[in-house]
């Protein structure tokens, strides 16, 4: 059911964990539905210098989180906000139809973290 690319990201997740001294944090999903993604980022001068994820969820949830961190790392905040769930699905060479919501969650996690960074910046 999963592509080799999905299994690769599941078995060798990239950027798993929590960024030390993160200044952006976003958590999306809920345990009731069986998916929670948490992304932490270090954003300097509008560039995502570092990003890591922690995910409670199925194989697709882990793989979409993993690949999403690769896709936004080193990008500007504006570029990262252009990340769409379909780009995530494409990068994974496809997802089963019932797993598309996982890619939406990955997109939302990136947005939530950036939103959190903007809020923090506004408070300073």
């Amino acid at each position, binding site marked *: 059911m999963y592509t080799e690319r999905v*299994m690769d990201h*599941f*078995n060798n*997740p990239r950027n*798993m964990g929590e960024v030390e001294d993160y200044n952006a944090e976003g*958590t999306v999903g809920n*345990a*009731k*539905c*069986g*998916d*929670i*993604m*948490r992304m932490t980022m270090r954003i300097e001068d509008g560039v995502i210098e570092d990003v890591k994820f*922690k*995910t*409670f*969820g*199925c*194989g*697709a*949830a*882990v793989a979409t989180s993993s690949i999403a961190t690769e896709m936004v790392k080193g990008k500007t905040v504006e570029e990262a906000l252009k990340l769409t769930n379909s780009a995530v699905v494409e990068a994974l060479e496809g997802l089963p*139809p*019932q*797993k598309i*919501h996982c890619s939406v969650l990955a997109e939302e996690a990136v947005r939530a973290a950036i939103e959190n960074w903007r809020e923090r910046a506004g408070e300073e």
Partner: protein
Amino acid sequence: MFVYCDTAATTPLSKPAFEAMLPWLQTGYGNASSIYKMARDARRALEDARRMAASCLEVSHENLYFTSGGTEADNWAVKGAAELGGEARRHIVISAVEHHAVLHTAEYLKKKGHPVTILPVSGDGLLDPDTLRKALRPDTAVVSVIYANNEIGTLQPIAELARAVKETDGKILFHTDAVQAAGHIFVDITPDIDLLSVAAHKFGGPKGIGALYIRRGVKLPPLLHGGGHERGGRSGTENVAGAAGLAAALKFMTENRESFYKKTLASRDRLIDGILSAIPYSRLTGSREHRLPGSASFVFAAVEGESLVLQLDTLGVAASSGSACSSASLDPSHVLLAIGLSHEVAHGSLRLTIDHARTKDEMDFVIQSVKTAVERCRGMSPLWGGGAPLRMSGWE
């Protein structure tokens, strides 16, 4: 090492079953309903298989009908019994822990206007005969209760439940899905049981063949119409090789039932005890006492079941989960919710089901693999920290 722990999904074909099937695949391929010798030989093999299977189940061969499997047997039993009830009896009663083959059939009939009652079970997954008794109505047509649950292995007090139904109203038909139980334990087909489903591939037979026991005197209308095979009960060219395989597999299991039971139980108990002691925040689901010998099922805090199954696959263990992720909905299995687990907890389910062929060393390997897989998942989980689950209801 690779250890197969998914016998509730399907089992390998046993040697006696394989050997019994071979003659009817290439040389003895005649249609059992034709009249020449080759066909008569096939017919004889089919009827021998029926006799053998019936004798293992301790029922008359005249009451055993071959089907394409457990799902067809369940569909036939529930839809047929509902139809037999006519206008006066349309009410259907099932337990909350039925297999989808019964649950979705009942839901289909509900859409067609049949009132359906789904009975709650205890935290162990057991249906109380009094709960069943109280749910019966003057218009109840059929009651269907699973003999042994496929996800949590809980064994229902089927004889008692069937008795409760017949004491209340002898005209209500009682069906039980014995797909997980048959071959592995003694299935007691009491006179109160009208209909009982089995599937060959759950006890070392081939896929694509099952049987429905229909008590004498129950005129169940057919599900499949056609050439009038199976004495008009189930049309479709007879699966002679399949029937021979079913019968040989059931005979093999029945002849060795006690020794297989003991071996399976010893491995299963080693597995349950090992996992519960090696992994913190782990729980057995279903009854420890009223349980199939080969069934071990768990929930682990802060872990999602599908991820766990994929991790175990890379480690060399084939297992399954009742987590939501294999289905289109976001709901975990109806069985895990029925025994009172929260959604959060139910997502972390794992089912390990084994047969008599497993060894101690294999069980120790599985315990270690489950421990590693759970640790890997928890290491990735935002719901796990400092050696305990975070923000999870149901684990306080």
